């Protein structure tokens, strides 16, 4: 912000200081020869295409499931709650992830004038990442999940991610930077550095968990703190996995494709640092009106509002780079993809700050508005940028002309139409549902008290989304065909041109420090003006990758710490509620089933202090109610109703029949059937280990742990519930089944808080 007044050319230029091609005085090093590793780029490119199709098809299937619940097939592995994480993980980590790696491996080598540091690390990275994806694709349908959105993978896979990301990818990348033959690092590399560092930090701290066996773990954080960590992670996964690497991608491939210089170097600097520093704070905007302390929610909002311009900095630099090249858009599909992609980016990064304003969020939260927002970003920005990159790379990597420019054009138009046909109806649906939830009639009663009415109102929009998604996938099919046909025309042996560049010498002179344009002022002010405001310091940083990495890490860690530390240390954030007790062993087992089935994908457990919400669901949720929730299950979307006060609202029999087939109880329900829970036996003996793990995390399980009675206690409670169930006219013989544990959990939800209250509170207090 402070650079605007210097008017560009008058106060000196950013970057060019002293003679020589790279600014400073270069002592010529020895001339070296090298060959770029394009084989690894080809590998990542193919993986991007393959996993992209998988992710899109999984998305289409779950979109169909919402419109036609019988497409859950009654198969436990294919229920919406298990497939939705598969879709999101595939889209983010498999499709976007491989796209990032394609971009990084291609551009870094060229921007550094160096082959990747280690071919072995490159291959370990590639195969390790694909193994992680296969692991995700196998475990998620099996219900092996940690229950935290976009971080569902269990701890062994989490460990692999850390090793592959930092150990293989990060090391390989940073070592390549150190071995570069280009003195200064181009802006794309800054974004790659920020992505690698921050994703590592986010992944490690959010995934900290205590394992219970190979396939199960509990988050070390609980309730409010877990929610905070999760959305610190979740939001910054959007930032540092779906935004910064793709900005790096844009900064390399867009000017290459356009054949134009980048619009503004100094805008790159300003928006890079402001983006990196501000993004980290914004996570709590996912938790407005929840039990998160108000100060954190406000910080989340204001930092999101401040993020608008830093985000747009990238968009401006992308679009204005095309000044003087707009005519090329007419017949270059690559540029079409890039322009539309950057436009979607700018729409999403305007919409994001808007959605983070509390009063807007009160309407949008838990609705499909959020779904439309992320798909405008994911399909529009990540998708179209990736497709543009792929079409640009295909002829270069396979050393053959693109098979058909016309098909690429068709892909662009079909895909873009598909995105619009997806997001516009879902925006309409989200706003419709949000308005229906809060509508009152003249008597002061909810106008749509029956939740399923508000679901049925979405059906036309859901069908339109299916059409939009199908079009998007049809475009992807064209890409696959085009890529295959291009690949078929490849030469028998890929040409591997040998490049030459001088090695960097140890001696480098940055040139004289610029003179300050300030005249009468303190020495400090003059130095500050010359070094900082004229950007001289940054030019120096750009040739020091280690310093640059450290500074980026510090920016991210400092911003995180300023928010995380108070969240954990301020006691008043979570006032204790004496009547809130740990879950019984059986309820804990039920909770684990709830997590495994992915119920949180459709049901929130967080009633906001909004009048319509407490009328529908009961007393609003308090921070102290979640102190034993490892992990928290507040959810982010209400495809079904909130369950925070579900305990005691219905009979056991209702729940069992509802799980067996929801349409027995709610005729128009779109929930999958969970009949398998009525058939499968609960592993009572495994409960002891789970209770012990919880106790290690500080949950006060006295007797049950001390005497190893967890399993016996669970059996007792299951017997009581099964007997009640039978006497209610329900199914006999359920005592040993999984469904009993889940019912026990359901019946406990949200009840503790009323235990302390004297039997009857005054009328209409909602107590």
């Amino acid at each position, binding site marked *: 912000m402070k650079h605007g007044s210097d008017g*560009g050319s008058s106060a000196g230029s950013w970057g060019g200081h002293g003679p020589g091609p790279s600014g400073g005085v270069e002592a010529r090093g020895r001339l070296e020869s090298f060959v770029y590793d394009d084989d690894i780029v080809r590998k990542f490119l193919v993986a991007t295409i393959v996993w992209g199709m998988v992710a899109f098809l999984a998305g289409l299937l779950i979109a169909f499931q919402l419109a036609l619940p019988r497409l859950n097939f009654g198969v436990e592995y294919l229920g919406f709650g298990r497939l939705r994480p598969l879709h999101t993980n595939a889209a983010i980590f498999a499709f976007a992830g491989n796209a990032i790696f394609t971009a990084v491996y291609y551009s870094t080598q060229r921007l550094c004038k160096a082959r990747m540091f280690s071919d072995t690390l490159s291959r370990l990275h590639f195969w390790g990442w694909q193994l992680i994806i296969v692991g995700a694709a196998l475990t998620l349908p099996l219900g092996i999940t940690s229950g935290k959105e976009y971080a569902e993978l269990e701890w062994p896979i989490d460990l692999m991610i850390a090793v592959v990301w930092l150990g293989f990818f990060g090391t390989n990348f940073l070592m390549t930077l150190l071995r570069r033959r280009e003195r200064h690092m*181009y802006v794309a590399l800054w974004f790659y550095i920020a992505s690698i560092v921050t994703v590592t930090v986010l992944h490690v701290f959010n995934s900290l968990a205590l394992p219970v066996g190979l396939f199960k773990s509990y988050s070390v954080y609980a309730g409010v703190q877990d929610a905070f960590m999760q959305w610190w992670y979740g939001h910054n996964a959007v930032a540092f996995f779906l935004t910064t690497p793709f900005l790096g991608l844009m900064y390399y491939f867009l000017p290459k494709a356009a054949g134009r210089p980048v619009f503004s170097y100094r805008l790159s600097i300003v928006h890079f640092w402001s983006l990196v520093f501000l993004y980290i704070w914004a996570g709590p905007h996912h938790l407005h009106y929840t039990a998160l302390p108000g100060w954190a929610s406000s910080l989340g909002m204001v930092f999101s509002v401040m993020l608008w311009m830093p985000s747009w900095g990238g968009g401006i630099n992308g679009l204005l780079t095309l000044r003087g090249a707009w005519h090329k858009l007419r017949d270059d599909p690559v540029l079409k993809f890039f322009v539309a992609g950057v436009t979607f980016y700018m729409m999403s990064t305007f919409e994001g700050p808007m959605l983070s304003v509390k009063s807007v969020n009160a309407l949008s939260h838990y609705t499909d508005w959020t779904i439309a927002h992320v798909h405008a970003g994911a399909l529009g920005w990540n998708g179209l940028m990736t497709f543009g990159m792929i079409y640009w790379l295909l002829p270069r990597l396979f050393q053959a002309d693109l098979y058909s420019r016309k098909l690429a054009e068709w892909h662009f138009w079909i895909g873009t139409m598909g995105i619009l046909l997806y997001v516009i109806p879902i925006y309409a649906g989200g706003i419709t549902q949000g308005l229906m939830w809060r509508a009152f009639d003249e008597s002061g009663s909810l106008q749509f008290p029956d939740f399923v009415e508000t679901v049925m109102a979405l059906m036309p929009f859901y069908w339109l989304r299916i059409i939009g998604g199908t079009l998007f996938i049809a475009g992807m099919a064209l890409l696959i065909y085009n890529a295959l046909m291009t690949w078929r025309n490849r030469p028998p042996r890929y040409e591997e041109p040998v490049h030459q560049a001088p090695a960097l010498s140890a001696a480098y002179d940055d040139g004289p420090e610029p003179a300050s344009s300030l005249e009468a002022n303190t020495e400090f002010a003059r130095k500050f003006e010359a070094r900082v405001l004229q950007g001289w310091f940054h030019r120096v940083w750009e040739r020091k990758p280690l310093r640059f990495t450290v500074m980026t890490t510090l920016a991210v860690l400092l911003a995180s710490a300023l928010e995380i530390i108070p969240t954990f240390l301020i006691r008043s954030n979570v006032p204790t509620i004496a009547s809130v007790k740990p879950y019984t062993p059986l309820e804990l087992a039920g909770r684990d089933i709830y997590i495994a089935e992915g119920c949180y994908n459709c049901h929130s457990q967080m009633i906001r202090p909004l009048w319509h919400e407490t009328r529908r669901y009961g007393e609003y949720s308090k921070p102290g109610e979640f102190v034993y929730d490892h992990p928290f299950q507040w959810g982010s979307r209400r495809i079904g109703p909130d369950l925070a006060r579900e305990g005691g609202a*219905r009979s056991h029999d209702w729940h069992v029949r509802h799980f067996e087939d929801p349409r027995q109880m709610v005729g128009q329900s779109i929930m999958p059937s969970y009949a398998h829970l009525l058939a499968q036996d609960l592993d009572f003996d495994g409960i002891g280990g789970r209770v012990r793990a919880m106790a290690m995390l500080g949950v006060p399980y006295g007797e049950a742990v001390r005497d190893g009675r967890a399993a016996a206690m669970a059996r007792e409670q299951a017997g009581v519930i099964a007997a009640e169930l039978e006497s209610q006219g329900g199914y006999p013989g359920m005592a040993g089944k999984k469904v009993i544990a889940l019912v026990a959990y359901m019946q406990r939800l949200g009840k503790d808080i009323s235990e302390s209250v004297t039997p009857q509170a005054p009328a209409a207090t909602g107590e």
Partner: protein
Amino acid sequence: MSVMHGKAPGDEARPGKSGHLLDHEYDGIREYDNPTPGWWHVIFLGSCVFSVFYMFWYHASPLSSSPEKDWDREQLSEYRRIFGGIGELGADAGTIQKMRGDARLMAVARGLFESNCAACHARDGGGINGFNLTDDLYKNIKGLEDLYAVMTTGANNGAMPSWSAKLSQNERVLVAAYVANLRGTSPASPRAADPAERPIDPWPAVVTSPE
């Protein structure tokens, strides 16, 4: 400081539109030395100023509220609006009978019934998993006050849960009256009667009271 005032190809067509080209070059990519747009600075600075102002206004000034305070206010005004002239209702048959004729309060009760009871008893009272409330057959009910009692304590081993923690006494009295009024209506798909249900005497006739 020397700056290469280079021009990119195509610039000639748009004189004066682009700034200086910086002299560095990465794999053929070059960069202009254009200043950041002025409007960018204005909005960015504006958002920063707004943020500081907002934090102080929201968290440190007496002018602001909080979602919880707003909720308390709304609750109070709703309570006054609905129960203002009534106060605490008794749970006796007479009060319930009186409420049955109060059209305004029965509209309130309909909302409560549809939000809380319809999941098991259906919106029209015909019954799903819970009993049909429209016919003359009842299991635990003999008088109007029993409707309140069953709602308060639950019945049939929890098949009918207790609502004492979820609905206030006034709300339960109103819902009892509303349920009494459902008797004799014709639901779309009535649930078959339970063998334990027995016919009971009709409720007293409703006298519509002036509001």
